[in-house]
């Protein structure tokens, strides 16, 4: 590809980004990358040359971990990054338009192989793989298999991952360069079958060991156990250390939780993104308020199938004041009803706000609701 074509593509894409941000008041993170790739299909590859690139992927925690790595690496200079979770290939292309020696990008699970091939990253951090958007992913194992081929065909990239997740461990087994991390083990909803050999896997106190040898014991780095925010912050530090950044002050884990506060009249709402069984369970375990609103939608990015809400225990909501809403709020309301958790079902988020009228509330919101209400 000629550099003239790339330069032309960059001008068009940058202009579109400026128009999108100033005139249309949109974040302008997708359109420029889309145009860029349309005009210069190998733009991402071209823009990746001679740059140090870190990619972050996994079912949960991509956005906050990417942000944390970018924060930790700030002393090293300008960093190109995908700030608001625009993580498809075109989002990566938009982020890479910024001139910088370093880039930290979050990448969607299914787009990761393509982005790894195009960017030839120095490091890829793999966080976790759990049930999510099965209408699109089909099976957790299917995503893991794609990743496994990806790591096998990226000999110069170092893959860093949390092997308490057996799917991540299975993927890393194929890597040429790798760093494995364990937090001492934790249960995995799809961990009954070994992703490597297909045999039934023995678990004991969150640790597994398969007949084929796949196990989370003997990791390169062993850390103490903790919640997802803590784990993601520690994984970000492992990456930062690779760049010589050490001894940084401890992270504010509340920031890692990706909690966003917003006022709606006299109601002060603290939002968390909940999009699959793992992120719901994490958010329910970390509830701070007794006044809760739950929002369930089922658009494409939320997952158009809501069956997974039955994989979550909502027992933590018992005795709290719970309002349920969202386009598929009724699915959630019925699920709580069967579990014996009292909740009020309302049609819109405005009605949920009206119900509480004033004071602090906590909102657990589906992806599209989270982005629609607070981003």
């Amino acid at each position: 590809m000629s550099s003239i074509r790339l330069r032309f593509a960059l001008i068009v894409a940058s202009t579109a980004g400026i128009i999108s941000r100033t005139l249309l008041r949109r974040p302008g993170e997708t359109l420029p990358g889309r145009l860029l790739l349309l005009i210069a299909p190998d733009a991402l590859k071209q823009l990746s040359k001679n740059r140090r690139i870190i990619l972050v992927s996994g079912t949960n925690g991509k956005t906050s971990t990417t942000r944390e790595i970018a924060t930790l690496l700030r002393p090293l200079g300008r960093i190109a990054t995908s700030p608001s979770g625009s993580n498809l290939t075109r989002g990566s292309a938009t982020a890479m338009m910024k001139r910088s020696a370093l880039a930290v990008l979050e990448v969607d699970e299914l787009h990761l192989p393509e982005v790894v091939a195009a960017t030839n990253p120095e490091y890829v951090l793999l966080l976790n793989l759990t049930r999510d958007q099965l209408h699109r992913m089909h099976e957790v194992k299917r995503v893991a298999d794609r990743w496994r081929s990806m790591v096998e065909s990226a000999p110069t990239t170092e893959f860093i991952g949390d092997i308490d997740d057996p799917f991540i461990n299975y993927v890393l087994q194929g890597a040429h360069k790798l760093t494995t991390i364990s937090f001492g083990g934790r249960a995995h909803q799809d961990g009954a079958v070994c992703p490597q050999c297909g045999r039934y896997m023995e678990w004991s106190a969150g640790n597994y060991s398969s007949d084929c040898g796949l196990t989370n014991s003997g990791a390169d780095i062993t850390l103490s156990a903790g919640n997802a925010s803590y784990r993601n912050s520690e994984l970000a530090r492992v990456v930062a250390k690779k760049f010589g950044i050490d001894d940084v002050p401890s992270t504010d884990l509340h920031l890692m939780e990706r909690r966003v506060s917003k006022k709606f009249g006299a109601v002060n709402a603290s939002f968390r993104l909940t999009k699959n069984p793992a992120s719901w369970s994490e958010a329910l375990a970390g509830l701070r308020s007794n006044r809760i609103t739950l929002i369930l939608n089922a658009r494409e990015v939320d997952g158009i199938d809501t069956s997974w809400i039955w994989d979550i225990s909502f027992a933590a909501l018992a005795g709290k004041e719970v309002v349920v809403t969202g386009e598929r709020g009724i699915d959630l309301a019925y699920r709580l009803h069967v579990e014996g958790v009292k909740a009020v079902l309302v049609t819109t988020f405005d009605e949920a706000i009206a119900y509480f009228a004033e004071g602090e509330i906590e909102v657990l919101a589906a992806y599209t609701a989270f982005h629609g209400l607070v981003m």
Partner: protein
Amino acid sequence: MPKSELSIVRVHNELLGTYGDRGNSDVLAFRAQARGISADVVDISYRDALPTTGDIYLLGGAEDAAQVLSTDALNRSLFAATIENGAVLLAICAGFQIIGTSYYAQGNRVDGIGLLDMETLPGDRRYVGDIKIHSPWCESDITGFENHGGKTILGRDISPFGEVITGFGNGESGVDGAVVGNIFGTYLHGPILARNPEFADLLLARAVGKALEPFDDELAKRYASERRKAVR
């Protein structure tokens, strides 16, 4: 003699639980208890011996490797004999394929447990999306969500569970599932019993051995009716 206690056996949920399948047993127990029928949900894992005294057995959806493991364990148990003795069975998606004579997993043909004369072949595509069927066993249309890669060919003497209105079911044949006696197989998850209380009550009535008292659960009715309207 009608039963006043039910044992609901959730089979290999750690393997056959990919699509919120545990919800089906929760709904059965909930609707039984609402009628004063005591109902216990018993979780039987891959390593456990399968009880032969259950009233309702449930098999759910699975990824390929898990489906094969579950089939092996069922073949080593008295499961087929227990169901042939008249216990109620709800088999969904991968669980539905298991009870036939054969299915495909990871590209290989695998023998099922042969409870029903039907085989599942690789589909021409993956069948994903909302599904609505009309079943002669229920007055209202039944809705759910399907996500599978197999097409199921029923033997000559086997009735489908219903006619497909929207979606795929057993593939491109226009029907979904299979019914023989107290055995109900279908591709609908959702979970199906949460979305279709009438079907949940049918299974309970079969297990108890008599018609159930009415249970006016407004939220359940509204949920079922909203899904019927939404899935066109």
